[in-house]
């Protein structure tokens, strides 16, 4: 019998299943779903969406972090050029940590990426993007 893979659903193995797929911010999902569902409603006003679709759309509207359409692309482009991996960029954009310490706690692989990049400016750059996300989203955690 072959060896069963442990932790096949671990975040560190994300690229084994989804390495070729684009990872989306919640804001991206909100834009996509709003547009798609609106078009479908125009074609068929009485169309009933499956429960999964309704729940995903409601969630995306509630937790969307970017207010303008250009911000997600800017954040992805800036951070990917500086060596951050797709899942790190998406989690930064979705969670909008208040500071670098929080970012490193919520996304542990960020520290590894920063160390590997051997760039002293990477943590500062990440923090700058994080701060712009925080300003955009307006969400802060209750302490």
């Amino acid at each position, binding site marked *: 019998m072959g060896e069963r893979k442990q932790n096949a659903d671990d975040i560190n193995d994300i690229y084994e299943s989804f390495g070729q797929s684009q990872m989306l911010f919640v804001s991206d999902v909100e834009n*996509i779903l709003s547009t798609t569902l609106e078009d479908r409603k125009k074609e068929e006003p009485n169309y009933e969406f499956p429960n*999964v679709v309704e729940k995903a759309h409601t969630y995306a509207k509630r937790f969307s972090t970017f207010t303008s359409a250009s911000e997600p692309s800017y954040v992805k482009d800036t951070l990917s050029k500086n060596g951050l991996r797709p899942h790190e960029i998406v*989690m930064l954009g979705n*969670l909008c940590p208040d500071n670098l310490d929080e970012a490193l*706690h919520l996304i542990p692989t960020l520290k590894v990426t920063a160390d590997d990049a051997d760039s002293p400016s990477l943590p500062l750059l990440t923090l700058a993007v994080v701060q712009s996300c925080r300003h955009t989203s307006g969400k802060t*955690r209750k302490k």
Partner: protein
Amino acid sequence: MFFLLEMERIVTLPPQTFGSGLRETLHKQLISEVEGTCSGKHGYIVCVTRIVDAGKGRIQMGTGKATFHMKYQCVAFRPFKGEVIDCVVTQINKMGFFADAGPFAIFVSSNLIPGDYEFTSGDQGPSFVSGEQDVSIVKDCEVRVKIVGTRVDATEIFGIGTIKEDYLGVLAGPET
């Protein structure tokens, strides 16, 4: 986490649908077969965004139905162990609380809630209240949870989460 995937599926249409509206029927059939489904590999298929290639129909011998090997793009949601995710509390009891991140349901056991939170059942309904920080977990509030495990059933994915680590916990109160 949400993904934009490109997937393939064979869709079968009966002969009565052959005609000028075939492509639209094919699109609707794909959507009805795929949207809302769940698998262990790709998670929940939330929405078909576009048809990449509808393929050329092949008539099945005997039935007269046509099969189309379709390629399509879709939004999928797949949770991962170790992922931190924001969610909305849906149900609270003394064993812990349930929360939803879209279609994904997470249970946070009272063992994985910080010790300063106490379960109370008052006029406003059940809640976990932190005496030290005057923060409470109530229905419809937003919490930041770390996923510690997932289980995939035939039609859904269920998760176990924790808020017993730094930078996790209540984000905001219920929506007004």
